[in-house]
């Protein structure tokens, strides 16, 4: 079965979505990530969506679910690399990904995670501009 790979790097899990996902693949990723957080005790999940050409309400909901589930499992999620056209469309569609932390790119996302792991930014849920 087709799956999106999840890489482990220390306490982080990294996911790069590079294909146009059909709905079931998105749900599989959601389940896989939740299981991996629980198995590995990962403290954070970084999801790179820079290759995604659209985010519709289904994928938006998946990102929100992953953020919520990882929070419940004591891990943080940061979504990085959203293309500007995708951001414009998503907001017009009516989704602003509330509760999902975002960063402009992988580097900024990693720094956001490092800072909040140090306890500097425990409760901030907003966009992070490097």
């Amino acid at each position, binding site marked *: 079965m087709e799956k999106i790979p999840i890489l482990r790097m220390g306490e982080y899990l990294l996911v790069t979505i590079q294909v146009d*996902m059909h709905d079931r693949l998105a749900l599989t990723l959601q389940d896989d990530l939740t299981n991996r957080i629980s198995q590995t005790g990962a403290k954070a999940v970084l999801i790179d969506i820079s290759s995604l050409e659209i985010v*519709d309400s289904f994928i938006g909901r998946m990102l929100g679910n992953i953020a919520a589930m990882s929070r419940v499992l004591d891990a943080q999620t940061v979504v990085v690399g959203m293309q500007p056209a995708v951001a414009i469309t998503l907001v017009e569609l009516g989704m602003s990904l509330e509760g999902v932390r975002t960063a402009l790119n992988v580097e900024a996302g990693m720094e956001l995670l490092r800072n909040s792991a140090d306890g500097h930014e425990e409760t901030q849920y907003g966009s992070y501009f490097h």
Partner: protein
Amino acid sequence: MAVISTETLPVVSEADIVTVRRCVRESAQKLGFSLVDQTKVVTAASELARNTLIHGRGGQMELAALNGPRAGIRLVFEDKGPGIPNIDLALRDGFTTGSGLGLGLGGSKRLVNEFEVKSQVGEGTRVTVTRWK
């Protein structure tokens, strides 16, 4: 307004939603849509195709590339599903009969220039949207 080309695609599986997105993207690119406009029309198509699949129990999409005074894309989603009893309610953000977010119809309306829903309970639904370049 002249129709340059039309294409009809089935919408009966999740994989078909991906195909719909790809074909609408290709068509928008060919017509010279900006990246933002491409993204908007593809996203609207994705939402509407999912509605056809889930709420309409499958159907089809007709894609027409338009020319004339303005270039544009017209998409017609048709199903023979249960129909929508109250279209105004279905267009409201957050209203859903499924497990989704209820952004499909209302959200995709905001992403296109023209939007029309015709539905007959027990017979089916037809959603026609147009996005101009």
